[in-house]
């Protein structure tokens, strides 16, 4: 039902991938797996984002396979980088597809997983943007994780629409990103990049940070229901992350795609672009 409009809507003129962003990551493609190196904060973020994803999914499901809590779950890791998050999810039993527009990142990720036969089978990496896989992956995934990605994309609403396309109804979307506040400028850019070097200099642009209210608005507009928002805090002295009430710097969000019957707003938005599409919900337009 959605094939034709998909092709026309997501032409290559519009892309969620930003080429200047890609250049920044190119330089560090081989540094992903140094736990003490440039990406150490991302490594230690696993200590809170993996349990967050794992426990949310466990609470929603009734099956539990001993030793493999995510067994049977198909996950898409968008902007997977060197595979820092894909690997733990794979170890917990999930089938993971990791995509990243940068070929060097995918090469690093592929090489790193190749030594572990279990991971090599469970994880597949592709050098691709999200839009490029939408066609062949409609309603394929149970879960999408987009961790530390949305602050780098060119078109956030497009990104969210694509997520909705490839996610099964009632599938989960997990996002972690950075808020756009004075505090996030001071801590996230000045301290983290310029002063302490926790994040490589120039990684982030404050202009592209996303306030949770904005993210929530876009998600709800595109067929998602936001279930949880939690603030995250990085302690540079201990090198570890923790949860906190306030979302003024980093935060994590969990949203669920509405079930097949409940779609109204997304069709409304798409109908504007594709006017000849026969609308099953003409009454709601």
């Amino acid at each position, binding site marked *: 039902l959605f094939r034709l409009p998909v092709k026309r809507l997501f032409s290559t003129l519009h892309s969620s991938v930003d080429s200047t962003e890609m250049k920044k990551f190119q330089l560090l493609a*081989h*540094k*992903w*797996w*140094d*736990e003490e190196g440039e990406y150490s904060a991302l490594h*230690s973020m*696993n*200590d809170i984002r*993996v*349990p967050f994803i*794992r426990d949310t999914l466990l609470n929603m499901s009734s099956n539990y396979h*001993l*030793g*493999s*809590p995510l067994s049977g779950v198909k996950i898409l890791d968008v902007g997977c980088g060197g595979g820092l998050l894909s*690997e*733990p*999810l*794979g*170890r*917990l*039993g999930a089938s993971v597809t990791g995509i990243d527009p940068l070929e060097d990142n995918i090469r*690093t990720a592929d*090489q*790193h997983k*190749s*030594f*572990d*036969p279990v991971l*090599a089978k469970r994880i597949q990496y592709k050098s691709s943007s999200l839009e490029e896989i939408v066609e062949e992956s409609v309603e394929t995934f149970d879960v999408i994780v987009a961790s530390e990605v949305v602050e780098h994309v060119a078109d956030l609403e497009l990104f969210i629409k694509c997520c909705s396309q490839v996610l099964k109804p009632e599938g989960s979307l997990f996002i972690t990103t950075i808020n756009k506040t004075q505090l996030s400028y001071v801590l996230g850019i000045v301290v983290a990049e310029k002063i302490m070097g926790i994040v490589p200099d120039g990684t982030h642009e404050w202009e592209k940070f996303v306030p949770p209210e904005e993210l929530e608005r876009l998600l709800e507009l595109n067929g998602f229901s936001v279930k949880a928002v939690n603030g995250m805090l990085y302690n540079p002295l201990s090198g570890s992350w923790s949860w906190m009430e306030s979302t003024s710097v980093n935060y994590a969000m969990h949203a669920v795609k509405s079930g097949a019957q409940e779609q109204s707003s997304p069709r409304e938005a798409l109908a504007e672009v594709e006017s000849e599409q026969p609308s099953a919900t003409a009454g709601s337009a």
Partner: protein
Amino acid sequence: AAAAAAAAAAPLYDVVVSGGGMVGSAMAAVLGHDVHFHDKKIALLEAGRRKEYERMPDHYSNRVSSISPGSATLLSSFGAWDHVCSLRLKPFRRMQVWDACSEAMIVFEKDDLDDMGYIVENDVIMSALTKQLDAVADRVEVFYGSRAVGYTWPLPSHSCDTSPWVQIELADGRRLQTKLLIGADGHNSVVRKEAEIKNIEHRYDQSAVVATLYLSEATDNNVAWQRFLPTGPIALLPLSDTASSLVWSTSHEHASELLTMDEESFVDSINSAFWSNINHSDFIDTAGAMFRSAISLLKPSGTAVRQLPPSIAKVDPESRAMFPLGMGHATEYVQHRVALIGDAAHRVHPLAGQGVNLGFGDIACLAHHLSAAAFNGSDLGSLKHLLKFETERQRHNVSLIAAIDVLKRLYSTRLAPLVLLRTWGLQATNALPPVKVRIL
């Protein structure tokens, strides 16, 4: 592709435990029974043969351990304690420790008359562990008669073309790979040496003589006795109402004498060691008596009743043996993809009966961190959680190991000032419940 081919060569395990003694076997069993390790592959390398008993032989083995309640809890967490109880063990309620050079004495017992600890033959523990390893044979593969002869360490993981795992070469030429190597191979640990971890060690000028002894008369044998002689502590650990196990730490020469003398003389030496007062001096006795009256003025219940140890009638003929004593402490317990537990990490004098209990404590801590790491999908060999184990255990172990070493040295002398110090110290400690509880 080349990497994948190389990886296919030697089987890859999640955890390999090197050393199948009490501590190594228990480590493998605890992980094998952990719910988060359900789909993991564990291997245990043991140079000796498989040890299992359906029924214990009539004679007691001369190698026994004092198992603390905490260790018993660990063993019951994966079903091994039930097997121990069905074979044989002896609970004790009380520990009396006293000096040969004075009347000073300290008594340990739990207020609620609970068991303070258990005297268990090492063979019994091994048999129980073997049974519980069998129960998880689909996850834990035990290699008997196997010794590791070489280890190849990986570089900390950056992207490189060499394998990120630890490579192990066995004596028979077989090779294994593992994500985490746990060294439980005793105080001369090969894992520790090959990992180039510095070890602080010291050979005591003492050997321990062990034997199985039969009491003159059957008694409610539920007290552990230890007397500090100038040459070293002698301990009597209850095995049953008619038998006790001897652990006598003394000079190498004296130990050899004890082993070669005839059985009657041996028994006489033991009885004399416990009963004789020749090391007393009037000065110390008077000073001690004065201190005791001072205490009883301040704290009437602070001096305990002195019980008399049992006297020995016979020694089990084949049971006399000796082994040298020393202390050791590894400066690091962990490295990338490596962890040390038990005597490989720390070796102590038997005077406090702590050796194997420290090892079981290491297991409980390491298993806790590995279980959490597995549930988080982490790389098991990552230093992040291994360092947490090291910090927790070093904090716990270092003070205890140092204290045992100090006690050993303090009690190895007849010099009056030191005897007075330890006499008063012991009497004071006996009178002060908070200090005693801390020691327990």
